[in-house]
């Protein structure tokens, strides 16, 4: 019934071959996911170099709202004659940038604070983790909503630039992710800090900061990575949600969420305009979740740490 490790005995350490075998067997699904995300990153990076139509100013004089697989518009165009492919590609760079920035920010801060809380422990650790708890008790929606309003206020003459707005959205979402990442890092750091090799390093008089970075951090990274991948996935979805409330980046700049939101008042009008980015969201989120899972499995990350 239960699957026992391939080796027959409970051998104390896996052999080298075994470890390699575990690393090798990613499975087709994971490779597909990596492939898809690779494509997405490629699109995001090269969006401005690709021979695409203008994603902002469409050809309003040509037939608008045409559906998939029309000449010149493989994914059709929207009511303003803008090529869906061009918009979804530029949207990819926006959505992925927001996701990467916010999770990068969350991981950096949450990871650092979590690491300190887990390694140092004691009163500082308790105080820090109490802080995460408090942050978690704050309604995340309100936080994101208010932060976007506060950091990117409506001014009459000077709407925020695309980059600034992207940073604001990323910051707002990233802030929400800090306590979650911090909690996981802390729990993992806590358990690794009690391992023999850390004790050994301590007893040899290594400086705490050095132990944290050299001994504890490398072991906590898989857990952080796994959560960060899942986090990226959820930021992509959250961006879509924020867009529905007009809180993602400003039009006319496309993001996946913006594209979906632009048709949400009538899903039947030009369905390809929201279906294409929805499929991008769907596949990317699925891939990220899958990879997060793979990382967790491969490194046997403790999920109970959440």
């Amino acid at each position: 019934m239960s699957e026992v490790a391939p080796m027959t005995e409970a051998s104390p350490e896996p052999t080298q071959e075994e470890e390699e075998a575990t690393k090798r067997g990613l499975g087709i699904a994971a490779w597909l996911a990596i492939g898809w995300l690779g494509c997405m990153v490629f699109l995001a990076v090269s969006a401005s170099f690709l021979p695409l139509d203008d994603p902002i100013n469409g050809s309003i004089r040509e037939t608008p709202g045409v559906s998939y697989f029309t000449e010149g518009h493989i994914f059709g165009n929207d009511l303003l004659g803008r090529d869906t492919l061009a918009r979804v590609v530029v949207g990819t760079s926006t959505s992925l940038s927001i996701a990467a920035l916010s999770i990068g920010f969350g991981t950096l801060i949450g990871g650092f604070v979590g690491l300190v809380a887990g390694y140092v422990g004691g009163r500082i650790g308790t105080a820090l983790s109490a802080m995460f708890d408090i942050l978690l008790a704050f309604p995340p929606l309100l936080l994101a909503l208010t932060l976007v309003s506060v950091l990117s206020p409506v001014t009459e003459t000077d709407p925020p630039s695309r980059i600034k707005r992207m940073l604001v959205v990323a910051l707002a979402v990233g802030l929400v992710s800090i306590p979650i990442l911090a909690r996981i890092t802390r729990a993992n750091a806590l358990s690794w800090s009690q391992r023999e090799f850390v004790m050994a390093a301590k007893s040899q008089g290594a400086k705490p900061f050095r132990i944290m970075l050299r001994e504890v951090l490398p072991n906590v990274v898989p857990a952080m990575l796994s959560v960060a991948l899942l986090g990226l996935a959820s930021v992509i979805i959250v961006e879509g949600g924020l867009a529905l409330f007009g809180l993602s980046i400003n039009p006319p700049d496309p993001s996946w969420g913006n594209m979906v939101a632009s048709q949400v008042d009538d899903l039947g009008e030009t369905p390809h305009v929201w279906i294409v980015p929805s499929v991008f969201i769907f596949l990317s989120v699925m891939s990220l979740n899958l990879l997060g899972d793979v990382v967790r499995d491969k490194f046997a990350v403790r999920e109970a740490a959440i």
Partner: protein
Amino acid sequence: MTNRYRVRFAKGVAAVLAAGLLAAACGSDKPGTPDSTNKPTSGTVGEKPTDKKPQPGGEISYGLEADTAGGYCLPEAQLAIAGIQVARAVYDTLMIPNADGEITPNLAKSMTANADNTEWTIELREGIVFHDGTKLDAEIVRDNLLAYAGLYAARSPLLFKFVFGEYTKGVETTGPLTVKVTLNKAWPAYPWFLYGSGRIGILGRAQLDDAATCNKNAIGTGPFALKEAVPNQRVVVEKNASYWQKDADGVQLPYLDKITFVPQEIEADRLTALKADDLQIMHTSSSNNIDDLRTLSKDGTLASIESNKFGEVSYLLLNGTKPPFDNIKARQAVAYAQDRQLGNERLSRGIAALAQGPYAPGTPGFLEDAGYPEYDLAKAKSLVAEYKAETGNDIEFTYTFSSDPEGVRTAEFLQTLMKEAGITVNLNPVGDQSTLINLAIGRGQQAIGWRNHPGGDPDTNYVWWHCDAKEGPCDNLVNFGGWNDPEINALLEQGRASADQAERKTIYENLNREFAKKLWNLWSNYTNWSIASSPKVHGILGPPLPDGSKPSDGLATGHSLLGLWIEQ
């Protein structure tokens, strides 16, 4: 959005460029318009006469386009169409317009003026009681009128102070059912203001004098009494069994026992709910919905009536006090660069009626052609060049709009069009209506998508445009464009003072043409309103008015709920 904080005068929706009579004549055959006979309308269409006798009883759910924050203390309330529709269930106005565009007595039995239109005598009907059983008499009407003018201690109206305050000298009772209003200046169209787009309802004493909870404690003489109001969820009204009107057969009005108003901001979802019979009736001004409804009512799935008569106009509200729009060249350039037909096709399924001026069909002053600029890209480009030569700057402006899908599409379309003429538009979406309105009040905007000026008498627009200051920027807080135009001021004053209908028509037509010349606002289209319902629902426009004339078939300020009935 749940936080539509609507003001009573405008749904600041940016339907600016969506329009086009001509577009439909050219034939709009884009996908999504299944029926090429779906032509733009002028006037009211679609009401199907029924030979069935109304059946009293039953209840319906009515889908509204928005929630009304702040409740129903009418002098202070902020009502858009959704709020007005509820107010019309609970309150009656003294006067009411008919289908011919005349104002007729309602709660008032008659309303008469002295020779120079400075003294108005209102005679009230006998035997009308409020929901709480108190009588409608001269004193309560007097206090209501004082309250609207900002002259009643318990109430502090905001906008209506601008409308009435300056003109109202005094209100007094001259008999148990007679009220006399004395004005500072002649005001022939004054009776129209006692309808006030359905917003000048008469409140019962207990509500009017209630300083703190006037907004919740609604007491009117209307056909329905307020039972429950849950913000963002529903407003429930129940039949007023002792209502003062009966139908031609002597059956007590209203017919329905209960109406549940349900705000549903998402246009498509409201129609879905109607199709699923979760709502039995709804209103909508969305082109997509109206287009779908035409098809649905043709095959009998649903019933709908549609009208832009006495409607509002959508427009680009420019700020005339600062660059670039303090310069007429810039305004003209934008006007010529606006391909309104294309906008109508792209954004409104080609069904909107392009506006020539502020006055919708049916309103005196309405013109088929007021001389508003036709799309002309070459002209627009040369104007841009002239502006540059004159000021040294390119034309660049920020367009502020509400960030709902329709608003976003309209804004992006505007941006693309302007780019063709070399005009730069920065887009500034705002999450909620209140921000939009606050911007306008502070004249902080450069250009805003706006909708206002529902019809009836053209004089009702005086408050939005007239400036008292002889020169300099306008001292009128609600002239959001801030411009001060002597010709327009003069025409508004003439129109207000004149009692001669033919003369007034000419004055307002001139005003209309003046607007097309000065381009303070860039007109887009007249708003189409549709009341869609289950085929079982009848009597939407209501029974004849108390004076026997046909009820108004304009839908921009809602419709009477008196005659509404449902087959059971």
